């Protein structure tokens, strides 16, 4: 019993270390004054962060990444939320097939999705405007919203909607006053994933950005090809903290804990 318990604890600690160690390495790298990875660190400095903030290339790409991610979150919540309701409630013939189709972007390697989008845009002569980048991210973000919304909908007690209807609520008001508030945690949980998917997106962005209008991961990749100093670690820390901040704020606002297994 206690032997099994200590094995269990050890395994958990090992997995946690495995997950957290890279973050620790980046944090040390970002704060260490030497321009290369060194252990143990020789001191603490903000110079890499200062260099990051001083570089228009980095800050412009950070702003672009945030703008794109915001647009992707709004779009994918609207599309994914509506799609999930339709799939769960619509009694559509072939709803399972359509659900599977909606989820395929999760299964395809993103590099293929990016290449396919690039070729599609080329063949239509559209070029690579920012809205195409937003749409590209949205395609891979929507499945997350569908999944999380479907999870909430499958637990949904439809009697609550019926009760509202008996009390005089038109179908539109039932949706606005009961359905929407109750599925909101699921849609927002999907929105968090959509944000991370977009903010973190590299393979798709690689094909869809134009020089001078690159997202943060692409700029970081390009930077690393020529320089490897603490700036890249500082950029990583900024994007990690932003992602954690967004998750935290949304959790405070709508309570992601209300969402069940995804």
């Amino acid at each position, binding site marked *: 019993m206690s032997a099994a318990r200590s094995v269990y604890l050890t395994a958990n600690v090992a997995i946690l270390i495995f997950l957290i160690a890279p973050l620790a390495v980046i944090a040390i790298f970002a704060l260490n004054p030497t321009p290369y990875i060194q252990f143990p660190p020789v001191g603490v400095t903000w110079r890499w962060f200062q260099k990051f903030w001083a570089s228009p290339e980095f800050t412009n790409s950070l702003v672009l990444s945030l703008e794109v991610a915001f647009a992707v979150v709004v779009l994918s919540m609207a599309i994914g939320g509506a799609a999930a309701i339709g799939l769960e409630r619509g009694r559509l013939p072939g709803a399972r097939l359509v659900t599977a189709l909606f989820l395929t972007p999760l299964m395809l390697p993103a590099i293929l999705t990016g290449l396919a989008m690039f070729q599609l845009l080329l063949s239509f002569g559209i070029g690579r405007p920012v809205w195409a980048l937003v749409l590209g991210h949205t395609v891979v973000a929507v499945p997350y919203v569908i999944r999380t919304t479907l999870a909430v909908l499958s637990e949904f007690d439809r009697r609550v909607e019926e009760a509202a209807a008996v009390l*005089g609520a038109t179908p539109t008001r039932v949706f606005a006053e009961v359905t929407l508030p109750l599925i909101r945690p699921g849609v927002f949980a999907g929105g968090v994933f959509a944000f991370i998917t977009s903010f973190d997106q590299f393979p798709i962005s690689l094909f869809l950005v134009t020089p001078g209008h690159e997202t943060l991961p692409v700029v970081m990749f390009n930077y690393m090809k020529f320089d490897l100093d603490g700036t890249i670690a500082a950029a990583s820390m900024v994007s990690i903290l932003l992602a954690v901040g967004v998750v935290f704020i949304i959790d405070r606002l709508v309570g992601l804990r209300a969402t069940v297994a995804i």
Partner: protein
Amino acid sequence: MPAVDTLDLHVQPGEFFSLLGPSGCGKTTTLRMIAGFETPDEGTIAVGGRDLTRVPVHRRDMGMVFQSYALFPHRTVAENVAFGLRMRGVPKREITERVATALGQVALAGYEERRPNQLSGGQQQRVALARAIVIRPAVLLCDEPLGALDRKLRQSMQVELKQLQRRLGVTLVFVTHDQEEALAMSDRIGIMNAGRLDQVGTPADIYDRPASRFVAGFIGEINLVDGTMAGGRFTARDGTPMPCPAGSDGPTTLALRPEKITLGAPGSGVADGTITDASFLGDQVIYTVTTGAGAVFLVKERNSGAGHLRAPASAVALDWRLDAAVLIGRA
């Protein structure tokens, strides 16, 4: 197969009417048709002469209480109760007053700001009830509203619901599979079986004069004896003549409630038998009596005092009054 087949049901204004039947008999479907969640393939549904068959749910002006309460989990008690009034565009001040009155009627004054998940099952069901009656519906529909409550609470809620219905004068259609509940609360009961109404009547009618084998067997316990009527006399299949009210000649079934049989000394009644089993229930004892011809009867005897319990295997006679038995046609 249709869930409900050829149903003709008239509920009187101000009546407490129960639809009673086993699960899957169509009682909930019937209630959902009245509410407007289901549309009948043919026929009409009317309230007070107004045809509602094609009227959508939200314009039927009915109250409904669900077994799962179906409260809005994201709203407070007061907001839950106010919902129907808000949908009707009732002014804010009037809403506040009427919500307070309704919560008072279900003894929940002071709970306005709680959330449904902070309430017990019984309290949630009271909120559901207040939410339904605050709109002053002409008809209140209840779908097994007490089914999720424990026995003690259920009994006190039965009394409260009944009193509230009387006070408000609302017509109440109550769906239940619990026969005791239906007998205790209803003015009239409709027994449903396989999508049809088998019998409609007062609780006493249903209990004492069941119209079919199904009704007889569904409500309480009953002894059923197959036999033949000839010349106004009933003879069981095993040849024993038995007292019963008048009826037409032919094969029929005699139905007899266990508590209407009296036990006496052998040779003094309709048939002699021996006690083959006894269940002591406290206020009464249920004996299983097997007659000489091999028929088995259940007999309920009141426990009138210590020392009066009958010994197993003792010989007894079964007897009953003419009007204690009813004849029911072969179902």
